């Protein structure tokens, strides 16, 4: 055991954790909005909208995240019309490519979580709202959405943890996130176990924080 290496690599890894957290938070915010949008599309009765949302979630849940990042980072740059459009400002940066891939990926999983939450809402609650003469918009925002959020909290907590682990793939497109820096230190010192303990410890600590935060929220919104 090389304790000196563990101590000296800790600040570097902690610095890299900031990038991991940045990637995670931005893609979660974008992904949650995408997820809400697509889950509403999924419960829509129009078959085209419905099928489109299903196809989206099927594709992003059925293929590895690595493929998605590679398609966006290496693949899209090949198209001439993208290179000449304003999108290229984002797509030439690995940081934005990673965020786009993560957001689309977590959006697909989130839409599934929310859809199943919408479907488990008892029809009686919606009928009660209707019979009280509440507009369907208000029923949706004041009855369906709060209940769905509460129902999906545990599953969404898991999704956040999966996404935290997913951000490690940013290291494959040259971003120096926690895993990227850990790999760099391993390949220069050839001490994989020590670095694994430190980097893994940071990840575990983050997982632990997220887990407890979700538990707290569950308690707060329980009924």
């Amino acid at each position, binding site marked *: 055991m090389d304790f000196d290496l563990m101590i000296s690599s800790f600040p570097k890894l902690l610095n890299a954790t900031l990038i991991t957290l940045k990637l995670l938070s931005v893609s979660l915010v974008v992904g949650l909005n995408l997820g809400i949008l697509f889950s509403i599309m999924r419960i829509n009765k129009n078959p085209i909208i419905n099928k489109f949302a299903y196809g989206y979630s099927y594709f992003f849940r059925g293929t590895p995240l690595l493929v998605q990042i590679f398609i966006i980072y290496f693949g899209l740059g090949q198209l001439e019309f993208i290179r000449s459009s304003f999108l290229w400002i984002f797509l030439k940066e690995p940081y934005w490519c990673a965020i786009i891939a993560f957001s689309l990926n977590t959006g697909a999983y989130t839409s599934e979580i929310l859809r199943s939450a919408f479907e488990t809402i008892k029809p009686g609650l919606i009928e009660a709202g209707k019979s009280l003469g509440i507009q369907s918009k208000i029923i949706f925002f004041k009855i369906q959405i709060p209940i769905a959020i509460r129902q999906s909290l545990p599953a969404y907590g898991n999704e956040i943890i999966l996404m935290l682990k997913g951000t490690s793939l940013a290291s494959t497109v040259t971003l120096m996130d926690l895993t990227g820096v850990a790999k760099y230190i391993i390949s220069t010192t*050839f001490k994989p176990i020590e670095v694994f303990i430190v980097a893994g410890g940071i990840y*575990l600590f983050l997982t632990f924080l997220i887990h407890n935060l979700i538990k707290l929220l569950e308690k707060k919104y329980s009924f």
Partner: protein
Amino acid sequence: MELLAFGKTGWGDELFIATLMTLAVSITAMLIGFLFALIFTPLKLSKNKFLNLIANCYTTVIRGVPELLVIYLFFFGGSGAVMFVASIFGYNDYIEINAFITGSCAIGIISGAYSTEVFRGAIQSIDKGQFEASKVLGLKKPIHFFKVIMPQMLRLALPNLSNVWQITLKDTSLISVTGLVEIMRQSYIAAGSTRDPLFFYSFAAVLYLLLTFLSMKLINRLEIKYSKGY
């Protein structure tokens, strides 16, 4: 389409073999995972606090740490660990472990943690009466486990195991960083030499979709088979 031709002109046969490699790694990893689950599920369910702690450490650490980090640990640490064990037995030459073995072990350990949780959940949701009844009937322990608990457990575990299979299948794409030529690695090579990354990575996505789709069909049939009588 000529990019996908078989033979020397296209990448069809290479990608086909790579797909078989992905399948082989996934199946090996899944089996290694079952082996781990077989060891750790009893530990998780045991009444001994210490054994419990070991199993909990295993599942928590593996499920809380990114797969890529575990793969790097195995990739960079694997041959070192084997050489250390070999040196105890007096063998001091350099040993290099095959990427297939490192990869399937790394993914296997990850999939094992998920399988352990699935089996634990399944055993815990079997009706208590079943355990008591087989005790009352005086069944021996192996018969009790293999003939009473196991069939019921499999039925309950199958839907979740199919999720573990999907996760494992997708995780194998990460082994490409170690140089094992599976779908991702082959697409990377093909994309590099033809300068057509969009096509090859999209094709890789299609291959993965095909694999997940076909395996879901197969698992659904298994589920029907195991839920006979319910």
